[in-house]
């Protein structure tokens, strides 16, 4: 299927770092290292640099949250409910009198975790299954791919909801739900790459030398899939952050009083008329964060291989 990355596009060699079309017909440059090339391509992309900066800021917020604010994220004070932004409360207070900026700062931790953990989980599952299916082929492959078909055909929001109901609402179960929904895409990408790599000379050589299968898979084939995996990972994070927000909207995301951004919006949207900052501010943070990750991921893909299909 055309949706997957086509075998002939795998960046086995360094992609041209030269932006098209300026020097397309120039002589070939002296060989440089792959990473250096990637960095050069990345550096040219201002949007990607912006994305990287945004992500760095997010990490900074998450790490230093307690130092950046004098308040705690759970300090309920019913006497200062829904105050508008002021010098004491830069983004105002929420419906429980908690400082909104504080909750958003602490929320960046939740967002990072929600972005990274389920994405790693789903990629680990997807990569393993993709490697196995692609390498062995036959019935195993068929079974794995049909399973992937089932998951992909299942409306993802509904699947996540059902999984959350089954496991019960908690942050940890949310990771599992998002991983269960998300692994199938990765497994397809990895599988198609493995299938094309399987026939390459260096793999043939390994086999001829009697290298064990797991070693071939993880030492020789996996590294060749890394660029795609890195891109999938960076683009998976914003997806997971948004999914968490959607699930919060449906009542099965993170649970109060967790300061997850999605949850702050959901519980604050009632106040859109009387205290609009509660619902708007965390949404802006989600927007900027997700945008930053998207820019970062797009930039990376561009740098690795501009022809890669998302």
């Amino acid at each position, binding site marked *: 299927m055309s949706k997957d990355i086509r075998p002939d596009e795998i960046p086995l060699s360094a992609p041209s770092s030269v932006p098209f079309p300026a020097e397309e017909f120039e002589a070939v440059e002296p060989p440089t290292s792959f990473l250096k090339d990637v960095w050069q391509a990345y550096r040219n992309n201002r949007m990607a640099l912006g994305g990287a900066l945004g992500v760095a800021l997010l990490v900074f917020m998450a790490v230093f949250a307690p130092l950046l604010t004098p308040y705690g994220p759970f300090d309920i004070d019913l006497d200062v409910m829904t105050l508008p932004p002021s010098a004491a409360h830069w983004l105002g207070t929420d419906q429980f009198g908690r400082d909104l900026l504080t909750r958003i700062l602490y929320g960046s931790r939740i967002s990072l975790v929600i972005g990274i953990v389920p994405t790693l989980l789903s990629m680990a599952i997807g990569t393993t299954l993709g490697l196995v299916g692609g390498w062995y082929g036959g019935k195993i492959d068929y079974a794995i791919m049909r399973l992937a078909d089932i998951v992909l055909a299942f409306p993802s929001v509904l699947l996540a909801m059902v999984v959350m109901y089954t496991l019960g*609402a908690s942050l940890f179960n949310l990771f599992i739900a998002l991983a269960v929904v998300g692994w199938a895409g990765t497994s397809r990408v990895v599988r198609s790459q493995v299938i094309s790599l399987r026939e390459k000379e260096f793999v043939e050589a390994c086999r001829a030398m009697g290298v064990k299968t797991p070693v071939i898979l993880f030492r020789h084939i996996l590294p060749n899939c890394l660029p795609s995996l890195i891109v999938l990972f960076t683009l998976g994070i914003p997806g997971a952050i948004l999914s968490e927000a959607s699930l919060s909207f449906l009542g099965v995301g993170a649970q109060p009083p967790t300061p997850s951004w999605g949850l702050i919006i959901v519980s604050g949207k009632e106040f859109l008329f009387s205290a609009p900052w509660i619902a708007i501010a965390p949404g802006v943070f989600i927007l900027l964060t997700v945008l930053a990750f998207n820019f970062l991921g797009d930039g990376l893909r561009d740098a690795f291989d501009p022809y890669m299909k998302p």
Partner: protein
Amino acid sequence: MRKNWQLLCLTALCALLVLACGAWAGEKVLTVAYNEEPQTADGQMTTSCYMIPLNVYDRLLECATVGPGKSELVPGLAESWEISDDGKIYTFHIRKGVKFHSGEELTGKDVVYTFDRMLDPATKALNTDILDFVDGAAERMEGKADSTRGLELVDPYTVRITLKEPFVPFLSILASPQASILSEAFTRPLGDKYGLSPETTCGTGPFVLTEWVLNDHHTLAAFDDYWRGRSKLDRFVVKVVTDTETMRMLFESGEIDIFDCDFAISQIPYFLGHKAWKDQIVSGPRVGIYYFTFNQQIKPFDDVRVRKAFQMAVDRKKLLEKLYYDQGQLENGVMPAGLIHYNPGQTVIPYDPARAKALLAEAGYPDGVDLEIALIASASSQWQKMSEVVQAMVAPVGFRVTLVQMDEAAWYATRKEGKLPMYCQKWSADFNDPDNFFYTFFGSKGTVARSFNNISDEVFAALDRGRSELDFAKRGKLYADLEKTIVIDQAAWLPLFSLKHLYVTQPRVKTFVVPWNGWSDFSAYEMEVE
């Protein structure tokens, strides 16, 4: 200036709306929103969505609002009735000349059919509880009889209902929407398809169901031959809007006429303070009570001292003031204000964190104790807010509360088993009788099915006595004493408060009557619009 501008906008909007509904121009239409798809127009098949039954049908008796917080039973489809001295035989004289929407005339046959249908196992009705006391009801429900012994047609306009034991609340119950009267000729052939569409719905009420788009809206049109006279409204449109913010915006943009503040309690100060809305607020008392439960099957609430400590650890006044903006009054018993036999002199539960801490230590928890509050997962619900605030409030006393989120179906299923931890809920009267509160929560089955597990033979016996006590004063005393036993001695629950029910209306709504019990479901018969 700004006000003028807003007024202009509003007028323009209204004009647009009228233009948009060209077909309806000139008609008097009231549009409201409801947060749930009512599923069926059959009052026997639903226990929560009574908007359609209240408007499409009539009952033998009706409960009418006669003053703020006061209601009384008035004749409905029954012109008059007699009760035998032993309180077991009820004779109803059916009003003559009442027409169903299908054109047929109502007779006693329809009344007997309606109640027998409820008990018929083939109906799979959900509201059989209201007829439990009818003689022969059990046999009918178990399928051992083809009719119900206690339901008799004496002559075409006289119906006699015999109870197996005296049951004082019976009359009030017959005024509840569950007891809406159906047409036998219309209903019987439809079987279980009854009430699923306008074509399969028929009552005697002020409105005819004319249009029903699932998950979108249903339209009720005035019934020209209504026996009390045609409604002043031509149409009554109920939009089904599940998202409460959307509902709010529909109201703010003039697309619905009434906003029920129950869907956005936090917005009461906004409406009370807003230029355009503050004079548009209609409020009425609600015969209902907010409460926290204690599950005595789950530690630490097996110990009465811990329950008392929790009662004293919650600053109910502050909850009422901060979360409900003082729109109500504290309650200390089981019966809320507005209910018959309400006892305003009930012993007050004090807010006393120091004594609570001491009690907790006495019960063997000097270092505090862990407990759970179970919530239906929904970040913006009032229960969520209340529980979060209470969680913070009782922490200094030593209660370490964990909020457990469940989805609605799981929550109700767990509660039914008697295994749900502490939770917060409200109950509004279905009918005006203490039994509707006491028996619901503290009857031998209710106390388990609602996860109180307050197993007390003393209470169970008193509740049975209360149901058959015919003397009004004695009955009042019985319930007042029982209230003290349950709330103060046994500390079986924590009553919080009863609240007013606020609605905001568009200026074009001229008369809006808050129903006697303060429900969100109401009859639109007495409403008027410009």
